[in-house]
């Protein structure tokens, strides 16, 4: 497969779509549809998870309802298998907590004219060592 020239638009479009679902408490569980049942990895604050069912469990275990998000940058690169690597820098506020900066990285894997999230790494930007 070759590089996908639309990588920028795909990256931005995906991020917008993904967070629109994630940030809606009533709809949050539907983010699971972005992942593969077996071939997706998520690393959430260092916690490693594989496969959509486990990812759903993680998403549903989060204790906040409302989430307000400001995306600062979305950087994308085409990968050599026709996919897209996306890095998001942003800030989020859960319920009435203080806002935290975070970084999230996705790898979109092409499959039959569409994509699924093969890799997803999330970290709050806390420098507390």
């Amino acid at each position, binding site marked *: 497969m070759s590089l996908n020239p639309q990588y920028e638009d795909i990256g931005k479009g995906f991020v917008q779509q993904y967070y629109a679902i994630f940030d809606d408490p009533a709809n949050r569980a539907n983010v699971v549809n972005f992942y593969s049942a077996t071939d997706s990895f998520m690393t959430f604050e260092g916690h490693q998870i594989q496969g959509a069912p486990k990812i759903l469990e993680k998403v549903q275990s989060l204790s906040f309802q409302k989430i307000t998000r400001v995306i600062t940058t979305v950087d994308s690169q085409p990968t050599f298998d026709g996919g897209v690597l996306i890095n998001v820098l942003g800030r989020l506020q859960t319920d009435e907590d203080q806002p935290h900066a975070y970084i999230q990285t996705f790898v979109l894997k092409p499959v039959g004219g569409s994509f699924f999230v093969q890799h997803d790494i999330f970290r*709050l*930007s806390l420098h507390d060592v």
Partner: protein
Amino acid sequence: MTGANIDYDYLLKFLVLGDSGVGKTCLLYQYTDGRFHTQFISTVGIDFREKRLLYNSRGRRHRIHLQIWDTAGQERFRSLTTAFYRDAMGFLLIFDLTSEKSFLETANWLSQLRTHAYSEDPDVVLCGNKCDLLQLRVVSRDQVAALCRRYRLPYIETSACTGANVKEAVELLVGRVMERIENAACNREFSLLLTQSRCLPNIAYGQPEDLVRLHDRREEPCSRRNCRNC
């Protein structure tokens, strides 16, 4: 940090711990309502509030500078790191009297704080919050009493909403920690901690001038957060 800016006798650093939604931030807000500055340090994700107190003991008056650290919601994503517990001298462990789960989790919080605190037996005050919500209360006095006996904890029921016992809870902890300070000569771990905190700074204290500036801005209103009951 030079000695020139220190106009208090003791700097006490407390942590507020407990599950999300038990009312930690609201309780702190009550305690420091309108009169004191809150400072959120986004790089470390810690919110801390400061208050000055006078503590009388054994015929002497001590000026206390109290710093209370709050998690600012990071515990929703991750377990708190060792850095958060660093240098803490006392702990307010809070659960919600209307949430069984938050009460059961106090055992985990205790084991966490005992692992990370300066000693295995630090001063902890257990607070059953939301005591104003009588109809919704699900944690019984017997349950709490059993836990307190098991872990030898002082216990107080608070309402961050009405302000009941909030001051008392913090001052109970101040009293315990001050007692330990006065006996510090025979407690090596604690005297070490005191020495460290006297010479400051760690990540959250910032520059000496910041510390001074904070007290000059007492008029700045705190934003009320996370308290839907009020």
